[in-house]
């Protein structure tokens, strides 16, 4: 009798443990929110929480792409620069060249996919390490963005274009809704479709999945294309958000923030493990911390150091956890 009791207790504990292990990002998010609500004045207001959601919406899109790249065991350091280039391109197309919005957006996304194809080609076919490839292409992309824009930003974008991201619907703006749709689509792709399972298998063991008939080369290229296309979308949405298109949008710091979000979201840096929910909560955790720094009137320059220390802690934590298993 007592033993059975023990057993069921153990099982519950086990179930809780697996839940925490699988959804560590959610747990971290909740803990940080509770701490913030207790100690940071004005944190726990509906308006503030809404603000956090709005701030998280755009980086979550980029983070999903980065999560997929990290799941293959690669990394996309060009992501931030792709955002800058795509911001520049869409801004110039709709303002300077007065192009219709839909073609302009499609062209921008097309540019993103070309960047992704180049990254994917270098990594998969020429076997250049991902961090070298994307570091290199990142600088190339930044150079192109500066050349295209002559180093100038495009301000005051057309109203109709801004409406794409700023229209209020159901109490939220369209940017948040676009982000939500992307999350749902990629949740489906990563967790319900064969692609997601194959991606995971590829990240965990390239030889085993290739010999099991997984199209590993195609997956490896696809993730870079997805990452860059999502970065292009982020470039468009960010331009709308700040009503300005410029090459310095995004950049290396933004890439880093996205990687931090992905790592907080439980992506394994050795590949194979990652989730859309993780990416969402990872980014939101960052934004909560940034929000607290703001609300406590601490200086913005603390942000970088704190972000770095958080990701460092997350990496060490993950490593220690893996050691124990």
């Amino acid at each position, binding site marked *: 009798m007592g033993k059975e009791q023990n057993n069921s207790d153990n099982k519950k504990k086990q179930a809780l443990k697996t839940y925490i292990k699988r959804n560590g990002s959610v747990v971290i998010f909740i803990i940080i929110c509770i701490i913030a609500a207790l100690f940071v004045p004005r944190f726990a207001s509906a308006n503030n929480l809404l603000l956090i959601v709005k701030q998280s919406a755009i980086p979550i899109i980029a983070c999903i792409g980065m999560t997929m790249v990290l799941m293959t065991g690669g990394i996309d350091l060009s992501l931030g620069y792709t955002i800058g280039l795509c911001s520049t391109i869409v801004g110039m197309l709709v303002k300077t060249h007065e192009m219709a919005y839909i073609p302009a957006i499609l062209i921008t996304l097309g540019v993103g996919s070309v960047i992704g194809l180049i990254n994917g080609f270098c990594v998969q076919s020429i076997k*250049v390490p991902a961090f070298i490839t994307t570091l*290199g292409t990142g*600088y190339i992309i930044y150079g192109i963005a500066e050349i295209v824009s002559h180093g100038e930003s495009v301000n005051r974008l057309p109203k109709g274009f801004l409406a794409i991201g700023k229209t209020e619907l159901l109490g939220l703006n369209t940017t948040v809704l676009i982000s939500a749709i992307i999350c749902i689509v990629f949740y489906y792709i990563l967790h319900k479709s064969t692609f997601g399972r194959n991606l995971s298998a590829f990240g965990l063991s390239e030889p085993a999945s290739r010999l099991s008939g997984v199209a590993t080369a195609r997956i490896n290229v696809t993730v870079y294309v997805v990452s860059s296309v999502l970065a292009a979308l982020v470039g468009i949405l960010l331009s709308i958000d700040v009503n300005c298109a410029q090459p310095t949008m995004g950049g290396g710091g933004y890439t880093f923030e996205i990687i931090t979000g992905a790592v907080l979201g439980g992506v394994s*840096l050795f590949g194979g493990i990652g989730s859309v929910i993780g990416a969402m909560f990872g980014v939101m955790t960052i934004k909560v911390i940034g929000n607290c720094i703001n609300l406590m009137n601490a*200086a913005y*320059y603390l942000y*970088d150091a704190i972000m*770095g220390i958080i990701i*460092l802690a997350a990496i060490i934590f993950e*490593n220690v956890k893996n050691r124990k298993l």
Partner: protein
Amino acid sequence: MKISKKTILIAGAVILFLIVGSRIPNYLTVKNIFNVIRQSSIVSLVAYGMTMVIIVKGIDLSVGGIIASCAMISGLMMKSGVSIWLAIGTGLLAGALMGLFNGIMVEKLEVPAFITTLVVGQVASGIALMLNGGGSLGGFPKEYVFIGNGTILGMPISNYITFIFCIVSALIMGRTRLGTYIYALGGNDMVVKQQGISTAKINYFVFAFSGFCAAVAGILLSAQMNTVHPTQGGNYQLDAVAACVIGGVNMAGGEGKVYLSLVGALLIGFLRNGLNLYGLHPFYQNLVIGVIIIVIVAVSIYNRNKKIEAAKVF
């Protein structure tokens, strides 16, 4: 094979030099050459440490952050009235410690080097921002500025520092047992372990040395500019990686010479300088360097794969 690679590199440098030089006024003067070397000093210094790190199959992406934070530490100390030598010493120590931390993460936690160093670099640049409230710092003591801008016997002091560190690093790699172990670790780590040599110590040294070199570079940069800006680290890591790659350091580890990395850094310097004098906008420079890195790495990887293929026997 080995000789031809070197020959190509040097011949390429000379040809580039002469072609560009003949077309641009004031390019091939002693003054401009000294000036380019001075401009390349930061990249060169970083490249020495980077060369060692890449030889042990790592990479150091933290140098940008270390450049800014160490210069900031030294600068703040000087501003608060500490003697400049103590300030410089502390800055250098901080750099070495940050590098050592990279080494510990890579060796003990087996975190991939590019992730560890990326993150440590971010923390370091965060520290640079934090220490002075996000602002820049300037107006350093005369002696300090002299290090960056003075000349001895007509050559800038920066150039002396560049060459001295090159000689020291080359001595470590070429003449000491430690240097042999560094190459051995990059070539075949199993052999190193079997000989009872501690791979941990080698990794610690290499990463700490890279951090130290970056700190030297950061302090020299701040002396040259007479300011420290928290985002000063900027492009240097890419340029340093590029310098190594151009200098023939193998990204797969085990191969590379410090002095060739210096040649690589100078090549980049002359390239940037030439493009500048030629009237090309700096935007093009990053683009060119990005392309150069990818192409060189791709070609070397392609060649290596072909060799492996050819070596298979039954």
